[in-house]
């Protein structure tokens, strides 16, 4: 009897398992937003309840789904505020996100050019680069129907300086004033003591990175906050006026949805001549990268801005309709290089360029690139180490052959050991570890906990230390602690730590070079700007200061080459890999004709950033 009962029980369990499996499958089928089973355009869509409480269904074939941008409920729609986490509307990646608030020009990281958006393609400098002028397009309109004018540009700049938002931090030191005359914008550069502009490159950044707000709306906002700067910065901006092709439709802690503004001025022939294709841009808020990746695989996400290890397996092994910008490694457009910075507050590091160089020589970069980036980065043999990102435009800015002798491609244990020996950094007490001034050199390699690819890199740096007799241990503090410590100019807790320099803007590679070796940032409290290792070199700094004012291309190239020489000799930091500043993996279950390396010159910028937004006008439905 007992046995019979056990047998029955086993059968019941087996059946229930099978049944569970089935219901699981049909579950994903229903939730999978499958267009094929679409009756009336609504089935398979997603039900949302916008502000008026009425339930609306997002038709799958009119909605472009994103992942990897928004990680929490949106807290603000205020383009002049600072309390921002609104990744779909108020953010930048490769250029400014042009969905709701537009810049004067669009940045294209592929060809390094500026394309007119609110302004005509006519910006011009005067001869000594102290004044830049451009004109706003006649067709440019705000969402309330009024025209965008130069006064709006002026007001956006002025209010930024007044209340101290990002404008003040990014451009306050470079732009003296903006004059408005109808549609004509005149930007006056700040001048140094010699009467030269401080940095004309930063003014170009203003053109492509600063979103414009309407002067009238700014007045309303200032008025309701009684001119209190803090209140204006934190204003949620629910009544905001925008100029872009999309606006807010729905946002809560589950998702954020933008809807197309069918009155968008860009339909005018002077810009796109048509509306963007998807009616809705939607971003579900996923718990983590893994959840976003699963959704991408299931076809619930069209554009995924997340790092996916071994991304090629998605099509090679799983046979999914997924593709990236390039169909071969490195798959994406690498624009930056996550870097390990040496902390110059630690004497053993600051006093010994040989030690810095030896550690950098011993690190196995191929292993880091294969491991942390799963080969989605060119190797340092392909693109030799320098201050430039791997794009052709930046690589042309210095002379590779002049610095070839200084190059190292990593995993050179013997070379590193010999360098340390010749510098007198040896193991004199026989414990296997080298000493400096009679003390064992003991360093740590640090990055935030949970940033798995960086953690893997730091493990490999630590292993390199072990191989050359320099003790390096890894340390992974929580991100908030990490951020407080590494931005403190006097910290001695982290010896080698990771951060990425700037990626791609009109002012790069200059800004990046300044971040690597410029002395402007030395000693700044709460330093998010650059030179996190506090490296001081007056010669390098002087060269850096010359570049923005130099117009002769050969001279610029010579300066960058000199700086690269200093960088490779002194090794104040060492890049570990190249990396896209935004990932671009698309699932073509519903939409196709995404940006690809096919001559259309649209950068892989999540279909939203800078000139990358052109992708939205090119999309097609599959089939």
């Amino acid at each position: 009897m007992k046995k019979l009962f056990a047998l029955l029980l086993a059968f019941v369990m087996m059946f229930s398992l099978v049944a569970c499996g089935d219901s699981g499958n049909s579950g994903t089928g229903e939730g999978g937003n499958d267009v094929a089973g679409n009756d009336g355009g609504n089935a398979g869509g997603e039900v949302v309840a916008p502000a008026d409480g009425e339930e609306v269904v997002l038709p799958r074939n009119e909605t472009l789904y994103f992942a990897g941008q928004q990680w929490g409920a949106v807290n603000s729609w205020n383009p002049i505020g600072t309390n921002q986490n609104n990744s779909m509307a108020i953010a930048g990646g490769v250029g400014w996100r042009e969905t709701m608030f537009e810049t004067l020009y669009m940045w294209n990281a592929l060809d390094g050019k500026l394309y007119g958006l609110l302004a005509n393609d006519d910006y011009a400098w005067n001869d000594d680069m102290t004044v830049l002028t451009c004109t706003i397009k006649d067709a440019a309109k705000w969402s309330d129907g009024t025209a965008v004018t130069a006064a709006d540009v002026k007001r956006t700049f002025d209010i930024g300086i007044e209340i101290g938002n990002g404008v003040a931090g990014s451009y306050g030191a470079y732009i003296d004033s903006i004059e408005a005359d109808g549609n004509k914008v005149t930007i006056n550069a700040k001048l140094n003591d010699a009467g030269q502009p401080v940095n004309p490159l930063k003014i170009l950044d203003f053109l492509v990175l600063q979103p414009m707000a309407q002067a009238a709306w700014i007045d309303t906002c200032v008025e309701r906050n009684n001119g209190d700067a803090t209140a204006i910065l934190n204003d949620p901006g629910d009544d905001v006026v925008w100029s872009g092709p999309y606006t807010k439709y729905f946002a809560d802690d589950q998702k954020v949805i933008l809807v197309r503004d069918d009155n968008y001025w860009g339909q005018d022939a002077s810009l796109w001549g048509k509306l963007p294709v998807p009616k809705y841009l939607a971003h579900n808020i996923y718990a983590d990268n893994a959840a976003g990746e699963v959704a991408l695989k299931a076809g619930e996400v069209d554009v995924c801005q997340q790092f996916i290890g071994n991304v090629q397996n998605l099509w090679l092994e799983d046979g999914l309709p997924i593709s990236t910008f390039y169909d071969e490694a490195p798959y994406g457009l690498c624009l930056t290089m996550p870097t390990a910075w040496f902390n110059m507050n630690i004497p053993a590091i600051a006093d010994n360029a040989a030690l810095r160089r030896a550690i950098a020589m011993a690190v196995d970069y191929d292993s880091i690139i294969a491991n942390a980036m799963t080969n989605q980065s060119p190797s340092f043999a392909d693109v030799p180490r320098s201050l430039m990102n791997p794009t052709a435009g930046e690589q042309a800015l210095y002379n590779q052959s002049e610095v070839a002798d200084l190059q190292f491609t990593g995993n050179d244990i013997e070379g590193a050991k010999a360098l340390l020996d010749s510098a007198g950094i040896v193991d004199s007490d026989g414990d296997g570890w080298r000493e400096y001034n009679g003390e064992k050199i003991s360093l740590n390699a640090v990055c935030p906990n949970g940033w798995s690819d960086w953690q893997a890199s730091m493990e490999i740096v630590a292993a390199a230390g072990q191989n050359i007799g320099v003790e390096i241990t890894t340390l992974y503090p929580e991100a908030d602690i990490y951020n407080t410590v590494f931005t403190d100019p006097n910290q001695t807790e982290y010896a080698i730590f990771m951060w990425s320099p700037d990626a791609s803007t009109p002012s790069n590679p200059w800004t990046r070079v300044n971040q690597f070796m410029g002395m402007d940032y030395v000693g700044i409290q709460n330093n998010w700007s650059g030179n996190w290792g506090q490296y001081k070199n007056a010669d390098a700094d002087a060269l850096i200061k010359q570049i923005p004012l130099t117009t002769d291309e050969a001279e610029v190239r010579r300066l960058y080459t000199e700086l690269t020489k200093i960088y490779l000799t002194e090794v104040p930091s060492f890049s570990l890999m190249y990396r896209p500043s935004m990932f671009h993996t698309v699932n073509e279950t519903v939409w196709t004709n995404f940006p690809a390396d096919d001559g259309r010159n649209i950068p892989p910028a999540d279909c939203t950033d800078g000139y990358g937004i052109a992708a939205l006008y090119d999309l097609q439905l599959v089939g």
Partner: protein
Amino acid sequence: MLNTIKQVFHSPKFVVGFAIFVAILLTMIIYPLFCPGNPLEQIGVGTFAAPGTYVSLYDATKSPTETLRLPDAADNRIEASLSKEDRVEMVEWFGAMGISVEGLDIEDTDAMVDLWNANYDPSVRPAGMTSAKINYYKRLDNSIKELNASDTVIIADYDEEGNLVTTKTIADTDYVNTKEIANVKTLPLGTDNFGRDVLKELVSATGTSIKIGLIAGIVATVIGLTLGLLAGYLGGITDDIIMFVTNIFTVIPSFVLLILITYSLGQEQRGAAVVAIVIGFTSWTWTARSVRSQVISLRNRDHVNLSKLSGHSLVRIVLLDILPYIASYVVMAFILQVSSGILAEAQLSLLGLGPKTTQVPTLGLMMNWAMLYSAHTNGSWWAYFPVILVITLISFSLNLMNTGLDQVFNPTLRD
């Protein structure tokens, strides 16, 4: 004593549990003897190499060859570069390009390839075709080109003037005995995200995890036992105070406490031993409570009273007159504590709060890294499934031993 042990080994449950546990212990000891080396050594460049035997291609080209004429070699080769699905896709492409496929036999490789070569143009993009599909056809075209390639592979080297000179040609009938190849490496469980040998790491991690379990178990049992004995035997105000503390620890979920303590310790302090002690320190309460209740039922027995009358010290009475009567229970509790200690480490590490990573592998850390590298979503089962299996086996064997002991020692369960 001997009799008790004999009795214990008559329990089939205990024997099975014990056998599994001993087998795990033996593997832990014996495997490193045969495969020595640092379990954390990164032998692979790249992530998650699949389990299997890896042959050095470099050495293979230099090894002596035998000529084998295998009848199905050509078919296998065609199948490897042009599968059935590929053929169906080819026909689909012909359809999309408006090329007539009438009379075309899908099994006829030559006809298919000829038609393909005559028509395929990588620059043509059929309307509505996705980039993913276009890339697929490019790859397919490459593998078809390989099919068409000649049946020899040429090995060439640079001569003194920098010209390529053929040093060897390899025919498609050349075979190499794997014994002749200088470097062949079998990775029974592949490599993990760091390119480490998973099996070697697993064996080493099992050792560490069992050590963590043992330390945690000892700490928890010693604290629980001491407090339980004192509270139960002394009673009165001492009992009240001890039970007050125990109750406080009981009502706070111990895992939450564990997370808070390990988090506040910071990563620098978290060695395997420290994590083990913290686990032990947060899990002693139920041992204390149940030891106390057992002691209460013992403390008024005649032999205890006799001992008291004889003027024996507190320590002596507790150790000699009470402890032996609950020893079997304490051993069982200890086994359960070890088992839950191992699980607690795994849970903590999975949350990223386990021991510091570079120094020792533990089962939890292996799972943590596998999860951080999305092994579960990219199909790299070998990086986490064996770990789960080992954790399951350890705690299964320990629990089985515990149940077996229970059957022997618990009078109400005795047959």
